[in-house]
């Protein structure tokens, strides 16, 4: 089924239930779907579990969701940054639960969920605090830790362009978690700079096939100079 194309980020995230697990794409600000996060903030859903590499920067996006105490739990690899003051305050007040995951394990847990894998053995983290209490196994002389798939109710991602079938292309390092999060959520919402007619994207260049995308919303990228709006295939 072709994705639903909506006219605003608010419409895209409408109806998100309290207590939902939400994946949010981005590495720092690159690829962060800021307008969808703002809509989530205005939408009022609370008690959320958020999956993101970081825990918000400065006074925008995910940081504001945390400031408003709408995030009960965050699953991430690197919450502490020079400008993560809203997370730091919530964490020190005991008002947010943190599940710290090595970045590659985070990515692979998301990929696994989207690929129908229940859990996998990874060498990353073996023998560390982050593997405490987890099942381990030695395979061909290498030590591994069991990590479980990580899925979500909804994924909010940012891509450069979509076509009306929901096929997505990304731009440079803003791709990061987008393609894997798109596969791991029951509902994937993508914000893009342009929604193009079917046939406009070279099928060889599609990164996320439309089967993984449920909702599209066009968001003007005023911040990105026109000279930089080339397609990154």
């Amino acid at each position: 089924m072709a994705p639903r194309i909506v006219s605003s980020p608010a419409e895209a995230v409408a109806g998100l239930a309290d207590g939902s697990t939400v994946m949010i794409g981005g590495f720092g600000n690159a690829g962060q779907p800021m307008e969808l996060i703002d809509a989530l903030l205005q939408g009022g859903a609370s008690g959320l579990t958020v999956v993101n590499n970081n825990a918000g920067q400065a006074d925008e996006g995910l940081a504001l969701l945390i400031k408003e105490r709408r995030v009960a739990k965050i699953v991430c690899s690197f919450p502490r940054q020079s400008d993560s003051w809203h997370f730091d305050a919530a964490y020190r007040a005991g008002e947010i639960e943190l599940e710290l995951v090595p970045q590659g394990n985070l990515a692979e847990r998301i990929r696994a969920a989207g690929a129908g894998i229940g859990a996998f053995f990874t060498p990353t983290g073996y023998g560390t605090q982050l593997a405490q209490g987890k099942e381990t196994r030695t395979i061909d002389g290498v030590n591994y830790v069991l990590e479980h798939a990580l899925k979500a109710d909804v994924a909010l991602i940012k891509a450069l362009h979509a076509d009306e079938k929901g096929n997505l292309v990304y731009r440079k390092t803003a791709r990061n978690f987008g393609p894997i999060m798109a596969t791991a959520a029951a509902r994937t919402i993508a914000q893009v700079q342009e929604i193009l007619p079917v046939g406009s994207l070279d099928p060889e260049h599609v990164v996320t096939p439309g089967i993984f995308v449920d909702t599209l919303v066009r968001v003007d990228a005023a911040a990105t100079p026109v000279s930089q709006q080339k397609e990154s295939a």
Partner: protein
Amino acid sequence: MNSAAPLTKHQIAALVAADIEAGSFVNLGIGQPTLVADHLTPEQDVTLHTENGMLGMGPAAHGDEVDPDLINAGKIPVTELPGAAYFHHADSFGMMRGGHLDVCVLGAFQVSAAGDLANWSTGAPDAIPAVGGAMDLAIGAKQTWVMMSLFTKDGASKLVETLAYPVTGLGCVTRVYTESAVFLLGPGGVSVRSTHGITLEELRARVPVALATIEA
């Protein structure tokens, strides 16, 4: 090659760069290891990997080159070189964990004689934990090299018998480059490849690890 004076950070970086084989795929960790990029020569044809999904990373971006969609693992704007490739996070860490990178250069709080690495947490009870890609980088590449100061401000050796800080990866470090010496780590223990501004006797007195020497 021994030297009479301790090495500067750039001299350490130059040593590391000179040791990277031509044609290698390399990940440089945040902080001091990024200096290595300044000392790689075009003839070496080294391809730099950044964990957030790129091979063929170029130098830091300045002025009009700055693009919010093109950053490195430290979230600093960078540039792309001809032949660069972008990929998603699972592929990026798959190429790391899968042993496809030749060398990873990291900073460290401590390294043990067995090659155990501590660089992600000081273990301070009030610290907010953050790990990022440190554990994946430590164990993923074919070789993991460390650049660090050999001694703490209090003069204690950071090359130790057993880690006092939380582990990042076990048995993963094969070389340690410091201002005072370059160490090679292997199944046979730790050997000193070169000394800088310190004699072997002084080094042995200050570093609580059995140190062999390499015959030149």
